[in-house]
């Protein structure tokens, strides 16, 4: 179980280095608009590029689902703008000296959407529910045998105190609870599920309550009048969370051009995840405000090192030498992304001079390598899909670039499920893949490094890389880790198990009437504290 072990260790180490991520994000958000100065607008319309998959936090989910549900439910703690953990339903907490016992003090003023006050009973009920396998909580594994820790017991000494005991120290415990993909471990009122445990609808404590979900049309949230906000400005998923509109409607508009046109027409107020191809269409418009925030995702070209042809590092290097990452990123993202050949994202504090090195295009060298390898111009399949237009564009550009050195790439466009299926079993020669944000370089490298026999989706299967990855888990010292990451980066560039291309930015464009909208490094919509002029 090398793979599973890796993950577990990685997560453990994250706890150690969690503090390193301070000061990570570029800018703190401006203070939220004071609720009293702005008349509340009746309806704010934002765009989702695909429908949410459920209203059940942290179970059936994707990024859109997480983002929408975090307006409705809240956990004990939540992520701050800078990635650290801050208070949410728990106003404060303490950790025992051995790091195993967490005591949370709940904020007494909080009420559920159904009017019931928040007490420790609901918190314990919610956590127990998440820990049941049949709930299919996304983060159940983290508390399983291979995870960071097991929860030994939960108790409620009084209605506003919750005590959670772990089987070992787990500095990553709170970070995990705050994770968006875990649904922020949102605390729910038991009335959210039926008597048989089946899901009904989320009754949470957030600034909005679920209004109407019309599949593939919209998700409407209504302002929760009795929301008890934390004091202070908006800060990530915590801080002051004021619902400044009566109704919040997420319109599901899959087509990016249609969304842009709708925004220009005024049928939509906010696009917080604009496709770069739409940038030209909004350029020079004074009635729109544009914003770009770098995020921690990563677009890369995966190479199947088990392929008879591609197991030859000369061929892999030759392919890499044809790719002009700067030009590619610029063309595909209209200059909004940062070209990067290292698995460590540009926005990461571990991205330094070694990581910042970009491979320069060298066609004569590429041809020379190909000749040496005996490549005879035979077709190499490049798998991509159209779900994300950028993945498709990357393939087209790479194909054209590789052709300059006489490399014959054939693009195989498959749909998203087929793409995932082929990724999971490693059934490809070359594949364009995008990875969602990994918070730590260990995780970033972890998406590439692993034992192909255990996990066929891993691309970089060398003993040395696996050992180096282990080393990054065994030390908390940033300098020591940086050294290992630098070595890994050099090896990665040398051995070319994949070619990292760029890290993108989250682009938002809002109508000028919209006040207070600010994306942050978490790839999720956030519409509290936003109002209309």
């Amino acid at each position, binding site marked *: 179980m090398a793979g*599973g072990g890796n993950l577990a260790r990685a997560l453990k180490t994250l706890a150690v280095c969690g503090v390193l991520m301070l000061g990570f994000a570029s800018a703190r958000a401006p203070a939220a608009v004071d609720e009293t100065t702005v008349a509340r607008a009746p309806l704010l*319309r934002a765009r989702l590029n695909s*429908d949410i*998959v*459920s209203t059940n936090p942290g179970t*059936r989910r*994707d990024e859109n689902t997480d983002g929408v549900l975090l307006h409705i439910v809240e956990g004990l703690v939540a992520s701050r703008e800078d990635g650290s953990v801050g208070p949410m339903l728990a106003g404060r907490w303490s950790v025992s000296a051995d790091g195993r016992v967490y005591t949370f003090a709940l904020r007494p003023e909080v009420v559920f959407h159904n009017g019931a006050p928040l007490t420790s009973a609901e918190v314990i009920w919610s956590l127990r529910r998440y820990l049941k*396998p049949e709930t*299919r909580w996304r983060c159940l*594994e983290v508390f399983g045998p291979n995870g960071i820790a097991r929860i030994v017991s939960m108790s409620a000494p009084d209605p506003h105190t919750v005590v959670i005991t772990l089987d070992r120290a787990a500095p990553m415990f709170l970070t995990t609870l705050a994770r968006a993909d875990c649904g922020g471990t949102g605390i729910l009122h038991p009335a959210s599920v039926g008597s048989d445990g089946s899901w009904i609808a989320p009754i949470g404590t957030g600034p909005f309550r679920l209004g109407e979900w*019309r*599949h*593939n*049309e*919209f998700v409407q949230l209504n302002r929760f009048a009795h929301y008890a906000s934390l004091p202070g400005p908006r800060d990530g998923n915590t801080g002051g969370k004021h619902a400044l509109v009566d109704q919040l409607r997420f*319109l599901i*508009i*899959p*087509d990016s051009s*249609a*969304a842009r*046109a*709708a925004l*220009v*027409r005024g*049928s*939509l107020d906010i696009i917080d995840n604009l496709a770069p191809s739409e940038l030209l269409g909004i350029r020079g418009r004074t009635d729109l405000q544009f914003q770009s925030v770098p995020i921690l995702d990563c677009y890369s070209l995966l190479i199947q090192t088990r392929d008879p042809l591609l197991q030859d590092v000369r061929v892999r290097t030759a392919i890499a030498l044809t790719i002009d990452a700067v030009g590619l990123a610029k063309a595909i993202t209209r200059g909004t992304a940062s070209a990067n050949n290292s698995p460590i994202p540009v926005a990461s504090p571990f991205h330094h001079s070694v990581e910042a090195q970009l491979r320069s295009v060298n066609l004569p060298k590429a041809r020379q390598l190909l000749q040496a390898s005996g490549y005879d111009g035979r077709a190499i399949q490049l798998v991509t899909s159209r*779900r994300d237009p950028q993945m498709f564009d990357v393939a087209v550009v790479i194909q054209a670039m590789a052709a300059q050195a006489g490399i014959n790439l054939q693009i195989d466009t*498959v*749909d*998203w*499920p*087929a*793409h*995932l*299926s*082929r*990724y*999971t079993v490693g059934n490809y020669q070359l594949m364009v*893949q995008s*990875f*969602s944000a990994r918070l730590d370089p260990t995780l970033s490298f972890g*998406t590439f490094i692993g034992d192909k026999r255990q*996990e066929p989706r891993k691309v970089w299967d060398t003993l040395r890389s696996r050992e180096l990855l282990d080393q990054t888990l065994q030390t908390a010292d940033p300098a020591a880790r940086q050294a290992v990451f630098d070595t890994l980066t050099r090896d990665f560039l040398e051995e070319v198990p994949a070619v990292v291309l760029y890290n993108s930015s989250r682009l938002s464009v809002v109508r000028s009437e919209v006040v207070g909208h600010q994306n942050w490094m978490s790839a999720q919509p956030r519409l509290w504290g936003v109002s209309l002029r």
Partner: protein
Amino acid sequence: MLGYICKRLLLTLPTLLLVSVAVFLIIRLIPGDPALVLLGEGADAASIAGLRADLGLDRPLPVQFVSWFEHALKGDLGRSIVSGEPVGELILQHFGLTAAVVLVAVTLATLIAAAAGLIAAWRRNSVIDLAVVGAATVVLAVPSFWLGLVLLLLFGLKLGWLPFVGYVPFSESAAQAALFLVLPVVTLTITESGVLTRMMRASSIDVLQLDYVTHARAKGLSERAVLTRHVFPNAFAPTLTLVGLTLGHLLGGIAVIETVFTLPGLGRLMVDSVLARDYPVIQGCLLFTAVVYVVVNLLVDLCYPIFDPRVTAR
């Protein structure tokens, strides 16, 4: 009559069964499954296997088919894997919109085609005829989505006369919903009127050469009476068949139009379900459209004797 209808419906059962089996096999041949889609790129093998078991996808195919078919026979098409909604409701919701657009558009297209085709045939080789034939031919040559996009750009964006996106259901605001449907209906009407006009013109030309038209003229009837009473009903019968075929196909979803105008119709539902491998929805949709196709054809056959009494529904 009723017996005839029952017989026709019974005769389609083998077709429907074939459709069901074919659908079931084809969609399971497509690589990728709903568990992968639901869990996304970072999922580990254990959770994927667990979800597959939850969804019943780990059972042998014949077992899955029989179980689905049994439920389908009882009218239960299962629940969507993605949204958890009952498939029957999901289909009816989306079908309502598609049917509204298609029925209005095909009716308009038929009216336009009947009038234009008849007049063009009547004034054969005149400037009017040339204009009608030319327009119909050009319309045939324009891809519907391109037309839709151009109309959207023109009326939605440049002129701003019509709403652009964010369909409002009829239940919410009928007036707004109608506004949203103007462009899709117009696009579909234009696209479909080309073939129908040509068909109507051709059959009108044939009918105009027949003796009973001369006979009607020899009785002293005005041209208007000759055209409306004698030419139209007879020339319309073949066009009606084509209208039926068109309806049968379009009611199965106008995925392209729905994509252009971001309408939550049946076509979009099917395409999205295929892309999400939402097996119960795909199966339900295809079975449903097969039934629609069969029923529409039956209705057209039942209507046919109105225009051509020689054909009797047996």
